[in-house]
């Protein structure tokens, strides 16, 4: 399962942003303000970010640096946001983009 790293032998992760609440497909999760949305989603145990339109295959995070668009979700109504490079803001409403091609 994904999890947050509490203590690391080398890294001091520094002062995290304040703890805020965001909603992911209606489920409220805790996140640190300023961390990438994708990191918060993974840390909460959610692995599936969306399904592909034609074959409905589950997708999550792949490159984590904003290059591959696997992790895109609708954030506060704006579609196709790359969640791996977009910082969390308090109260964000995040939804999977589930389209279907006929």
């Amino acid at each position, binding site marked *: 399962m994904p999890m947050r790293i509490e*203590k*690391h*032998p*080398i890294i001091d992760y520094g002062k995290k942003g304040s703890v805020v609440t965001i909603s992911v497909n209606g489920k409220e999760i805790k996140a640190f303000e300023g961390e990438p949305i994708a990191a918060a989603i993974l840390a909460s145990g959610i692995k599936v970010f969306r399904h592909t339109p034609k074959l409905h295959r589950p997708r999550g995070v792949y490159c984590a640096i904003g290059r591959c668009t696997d992790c895109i979700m609708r954030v506060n109504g704006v579609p196709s946001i790359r969640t791996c490079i977009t910082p969390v803001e308090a109260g964000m409403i995040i939804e999977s983009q589930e389209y279907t091609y006929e």
Partner: protein
Amino acid sequence: MARVEGVLTVEEVMKCPGWPGDNFIEKKRVAILECVEDIPCNPCEEICPVGAIKVGSPITNLPVIDGEKCTGCNKCIAICPGLAIFVVDKNHSQRFSSISLPYELLPLPKKGDRVEGLDRSGKSICRAQVEKVVALEKNDKTVIVTIIVEKEFCHDVRSIHIP
């Protein structure tokens, strides 16, 4: 097991210039530089306070250890980016050898802990006791752990597992 598989044999270690030679191994606490590839790298030479390590030019040369000069100060263990240096005192006591190795994991062992000694392939081959744990700020999170093992394992144990 062999270098190409990620695991050096003791024979391969003894052939490399970072091996101080049997008589220094028997005589004193001395550094063993298990460095066998021509990577451009020489901080071990630059940090040794007594000039016991020579890389020279080009910096792809394998480091050569001078067992006579080496004082076993452990500075090279901490700086080696490949974590490939160990300081061994084969005749630490009648029965036991001591091995100082670099450690960068959590939890840290504590002095007195009984741990497992692992060989280069990660196999648990003996029991070991932690004699010393040194975390210096200048070593930048590379902790030097010194363990005591039965003599016959002194050339094989290069890692520990805390049960």
